[in-house]
């Protein structure tokens, strides 16, 4: 005697992203903390020193936040105009920032007043950075020049005027104190050597360059501008390696995850994309509420800080392992656990006689009713389940099972107004879902057949029937449009294929499974 086989609930393929180690890693962040700044957040920089405070440049201020504080631990307000590019020195003691008023200011992180003020630029300074020997400062300005300054003497060392447009990004080498790279709106990236009068390398990005980034090994350079992210091989004389086009608006900021395995790019299209640096494929994607201007990752990816055009600073902290365990522990300590293990951990003694009890398989309520052939009750139970958790899979599976048994019509019949309106509600909610359409269309037809005699007796049911009709009509129009688009695409694909070899028209379709199947149910319904 075989046991009752429960109704099979089909598992539908999950739409959206697949679960990869990357998605698991990048999803392991807490809900973001949001801090409102005074203006668009143009720059974020993490201190290399242990608590890893970070400087946020927004409007005319630079705020320094602690790793878990929501209030700034320090604020620099001595700017006459919009501040730009607040950067920490590699020892975390000094901070440099440019300003729209062309003055570059150097602050002591513990002090308040500027230690040094560098004047010389004629327009706003958007780029500042320390060289790796800590004694010089690199600046880039809208007056097309980039300059090197000496900190102790606060004098200008050199000035390069090679760019022909605003310089909006730049970085210094962490390995060599004389090398630095700037990117400009004249579409070029230039590599300078302070020991030489001129730039030593020029690369054409062919878009206004918004951000540059050096790999820790400094063999590769990443630049972003326009919708493109480009990777250059410096050791091969600036040869382009890859060009990534994954954003649909200007890419404003770049970042590397601390182990150097993943590249992050933030864009005005409100997305942060994460690339694998071995094959440059997008492995994950973050969405934000507004266009992103700046992005920074704390060392070891402990937090991701993003600044947006609307002045909101969003900070995501990584979940600590204890918290994860806590969540798991909560699930385990349910009160019924003890009931389940009762007697299970008994170790039988040597001469105990073992009597095995047949394992009683647990059946869901609707399965029990199906087993007893209580079909209407089974359908009621399934509908009840849908009302509770809004998941139609089980309800549809029960309907399908009833249809297979040839008793769906009996189960649907004999319902009062309230029951019927519940059923119609369910149909309205799910009949156009392509996963459920084949079953639910049959059910809808049956309902219309059974209850056509009583149409007009209840205003509630009538209203729902009208809604159902509208829904189906809209779906039919939609499917027709889709079919037209499909036809157009087929024509395009056919013309793009080489002429001589068109062995099969079907092969050009991206997915043979989904075509056209959805249009069919509509007309049947109308007829009914």
């Amino acid at each position, binding site marked *: 005697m*075989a*046991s009752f086989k429960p109704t099979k609930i089909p598992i539908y393929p999950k739409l959206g992203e697949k679960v990869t180690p990357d998605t698991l890693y990048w999803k392991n962040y807490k809900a973001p903390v949001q801090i409102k700044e005074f203006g668009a957040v143009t720059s974020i920089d993490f201190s290399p020193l242990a608590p890893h405070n970070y400087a946020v440049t927004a409007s005319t201020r630079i705020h320094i936040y602690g790793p878990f504080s929501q209030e700034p631990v320090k604020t620099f307000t001595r700017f006459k105009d919009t501040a730009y590019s607040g950067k920490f020195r590699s020892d975390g003691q000094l901070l440099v920032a440019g300003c729209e008023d062309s003055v570059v200011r150097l602050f002591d992180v513990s002090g308040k007043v500027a230690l040094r003020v560098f004047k010389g630029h004629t327009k706003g300074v958007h780029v500042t950075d320390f060289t790796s020997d800590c004694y010089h400062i690199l600046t880039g300005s809208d007056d097309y020049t980039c300059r090197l300054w000496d900190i102790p003497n606060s004098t200008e060392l050199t000035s390069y005027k090679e760019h022909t447009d605003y310089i909006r990004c730049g970085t210094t080498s962490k390995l060599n104190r004389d090398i630095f790279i700037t990117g400009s709106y004249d579409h070029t990236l230039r590599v300078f050597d302070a020991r030489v009068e001129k730039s030593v390398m020029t690369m054409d990005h062919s878009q206004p360059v918004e951000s540059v980034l050096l790999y820790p090994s400094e063999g590769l350079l990443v630049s972003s501008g326009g919708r493109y992210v480009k990777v250059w091989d410096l050791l091969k004389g600036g040869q382009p390696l890859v060009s990534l086009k994954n954003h649909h608006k200007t890419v404003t900021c770049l970042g590397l995850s601390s182990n150097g395995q993943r590249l992050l790019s933030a864009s005005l299209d409100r997305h942060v994309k994460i690339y694998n640096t071995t094959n440059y494929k997008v492995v994950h994607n973050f969405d934000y509420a507004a266009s992103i201007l700046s992005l920074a990752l704390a060392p070891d990816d402990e937090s991701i800080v993003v600044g947006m055009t609307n002045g909101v600073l969003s900070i995501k902290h990584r979940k600590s392992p204890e918290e994860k365990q806590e969540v798991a522990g909560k699930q385990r300590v349910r009160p019924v656990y003890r009931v389940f293990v009762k007697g299970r951990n008994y170790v039988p003694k040597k001469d105990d006689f073992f009597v095995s009890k047949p394992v009683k398989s647990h059946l869901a309520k609707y399965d029990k009713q199906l087993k007893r052939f209580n079909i209407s009750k089974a359908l009621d139970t399934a509908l009840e389940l849908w009302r509770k958790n809004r998941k139609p899979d089980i309800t549809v599976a029960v309907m399908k099972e009833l249809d297979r*048994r040839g008793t769906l019509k009996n189960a649907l019949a004999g319902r009062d107004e309230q029951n019927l309106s519940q059923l119609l509600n369910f149909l309205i909610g799910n009949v156009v879902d392509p996963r459920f359409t084949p079953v639910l269309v049959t059910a809808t037809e049956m309902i219309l057949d059974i209850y056509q005699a009583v149409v007009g007796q209840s205003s509630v049911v009538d209203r729902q029937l009208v809604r159902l009709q509208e829904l189906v009509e809209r779906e039919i129009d939609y499917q027709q449009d889709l079919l037209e688009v499909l036809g157009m695409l087929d024509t395009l694909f056919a013309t793009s294929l080489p002429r001589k070899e068109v062995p099969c028209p*079907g092969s050009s*379709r991206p997915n*043979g499974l989904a075509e056209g199947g959805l249009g069919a149910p509509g007309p049947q319904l109308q007829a009914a």
Partner: protein
Amino acid sequence: MVAHAEIRVVHRGGSKINFREPVITNDSRFLLCASGESVKVYSSSSEECVHDLQGHTDLVSGIARNPSNHLQVYSCSADGTVRLWDFTDGILIKTFIIGYPIYSIYVSEKHGGVVFVVVPMANDKSSELFQLVAVHLPRSGDQEVEARELSAVLCDVSPSPGAASFGREGEYVAAAKGLQLEVFFFKKQKPYRFFLKPGIKKGSKNAFTCVSCHPKEDCIATGHADGKIRLWRNFNQKKEYTYSTLHWHHGAVNTLQFTPEGTNLLSGGIESVLVQWRYTQENQKDFLPRLGAAITHIAVSPDGSLFCTSHSDNKITIIQSCVKVSAIIQGLVKSEGVRTDLMIDPRSKALVLNGKPGHLQFYSLHRDKQLYNLDIVQQEYINEEGLDQFEVVKAAFDAHGDWLATVEERRQKGSELEINLKLWAYDEQTQSFVLNTTVTAPHEDQITAMCFSPSPETTMLVTISFDGHFKAWLLADHSDTKEGASWSCDFVGGYHLLKPGCCCFSADGSLLAVGFQEVVTVWSPSSWELLTTLSQPPGAIRDLCFGRLSCSKYLLGTSTKNQLCCWNILTCSLEWSTPMDVSLLQADPLSENIAAFCSQSGCSDLFVFKPGEPRPLYSQRALCTGKVQHAIFAPRDQMLESCEEHAQWLNRSQLYFLTQHMDLMTFSTKTEEDRLLASSKRLMVDNSVAVTPFYLLLGKHRLQQQQQQQEALTNPMAERIQLPQGSIAIKELLYTPAHVLPSASFLCSMFVRSLLISSSSAREEKEPVEEEMESEEEDSEGEAELRDARQDLEGSAAWGPGEELGTPALTKAQERELRRVKHFDHSWLSSLLEC
């Protein structure tokens, strides 16, 4: 035509066991059931077939216990004989020749020496009218007796064995047919007839289907086509009879049976639920649900401790009276059509085909036993008539048996075809297939064929469908995600929107041939390029098959217009073609041979050929009637070494085929039969001697001795090696007068040793051990004369080498002791013998 006397077509297994009601023996140890032309005896506890009672020349139509001897059964057959068997030894005792085809048999304890059989009224098979006759079995010592003493009891009865039953003490017999119940009283010699009105609403649903009489009381239970059971009482008069109605079944009641004490009534029908009604308390019922398939017969053991039910899926379930299933005897399930075709599971070498609804059955050809059922559909089966069920329509194994692909479909009136493609992975731990991927609606129309790529690099499946496309499915390894490997569609192909009919991979998997009506397209699976098209109009391609091994450059195709074509793939041209109505083309996976079944004037012919050779290897006309639609080459366990030229194609694998009547047939060669015969002969010899403890002691030795003596005449060396050490010792022991024997304690150990059978390995080790012993003996002093004596003994009784044969497994200390015992014993004994 060439006649090949050495190759015979033989019936091989898979016969029906649910044709008639099984019979349980008095001691409930055995179960007998009619199976084709033989009666099978099964053990009711171990489910194994114990005996196969062969002798009838036509379908066995009934079995009945001999009421006067509980070790004997009667069987009747359509060949017009009733045979009496001893089922414990499987011996035919007597044959009674009736002369008419018999449809069922009844016995009654009160009617000694009489059996009741149902025979046609007119003496021809086409007759529709049947009568129940009593046959007086003549008492005679002959093996074959003609029983001509027939007396008609009832006219116009139903040929079904369930439609008649003998009542209390055999006083009356009740038979039902149509809407009429007829009760014949033997004392009064008078029949009473009772009629039912045809049901008003549902036409003739009121008809009787089965009858059972209460063994202790005057009560007849009848089952009806509308699911009702009526209990008739007071029927020994025409007017005042009464009946009460029980209703649980919603389909027809197929069978009814009272338990021997009459306390319970068992009924079964299409619902596959065994219902146990309490007699006189009919509202109390016990159920045994989900028995798998419709119940066709119920039998009860004479002591009432066991029930058994036959089911429409060729199964017998043995149920204990506490309504618990204790054993299941499952035969080869033969549904209406073998839709999946025959396959061989590469791992278990079992024959695989669709069995129970929604299942695949794995059937061992060697043991003629079903191994297991694989549930493909995984849905509760609702036993109801007129319900559209999911059916397994296609299945395929990959080359190593790691993957199984199945297609199930359900066609419902007025709605779309539901198709599921399922892929099953073989799980080493559970030794069965585990569902890996389900693809709902893989195609928009019926899938006509599918096959796995035989190439070892890729795991690829190709399905072709009437929607004009073929699809290639690849095992994609998502090692970066949690789900593991699953299947996904890799390529969709078509050819001018023609409907594809068949597909075939070349032996190395580098080419895929798909037949699109009249055109054969050849694709490269690695790049999905259309390489070439071959066409031989008129006639659509029906079957495609690549040659193997040395003939792998050939592609064979059959078309609907009776053409067998062979293309050379290297030149892309037609090599040869011949007009032939080939219904089936089957390639042997282990050789170049290809078998073609042709249908011609209602018969099937077989041709076995190599694509590269002009003459067929083997041909046989008129194999069987009707078209052969399913055949398979099953690889043999060990290669046959047959020297006949015509039988060589059967050396590596055996060809099985299913006839139109779903009989599983095969070809057997002479060498194979000789081997079988030899083994059965040996069994016969063994069986001819009564098995007593004494025989166990001596008989085998004697037999061996005889053989060895014969061998010794031709080869004295063989004698030396194979002589059993025990026989001479025992002989001496037995023939020596008792008063000269030493005490029993001396002889005992020697005697026991002599009975040990030396293994062959021991025999191989014999030489070095012997040498060792020789050297030891030389070392030990004072044994010289003993040794002389021993040699004398060897000379006289020729037992020298045998003595050492049994000893090598012993330790040296034991050996020495044993030797001492022997020397002591037999030095004087030999001298006695010499005297």
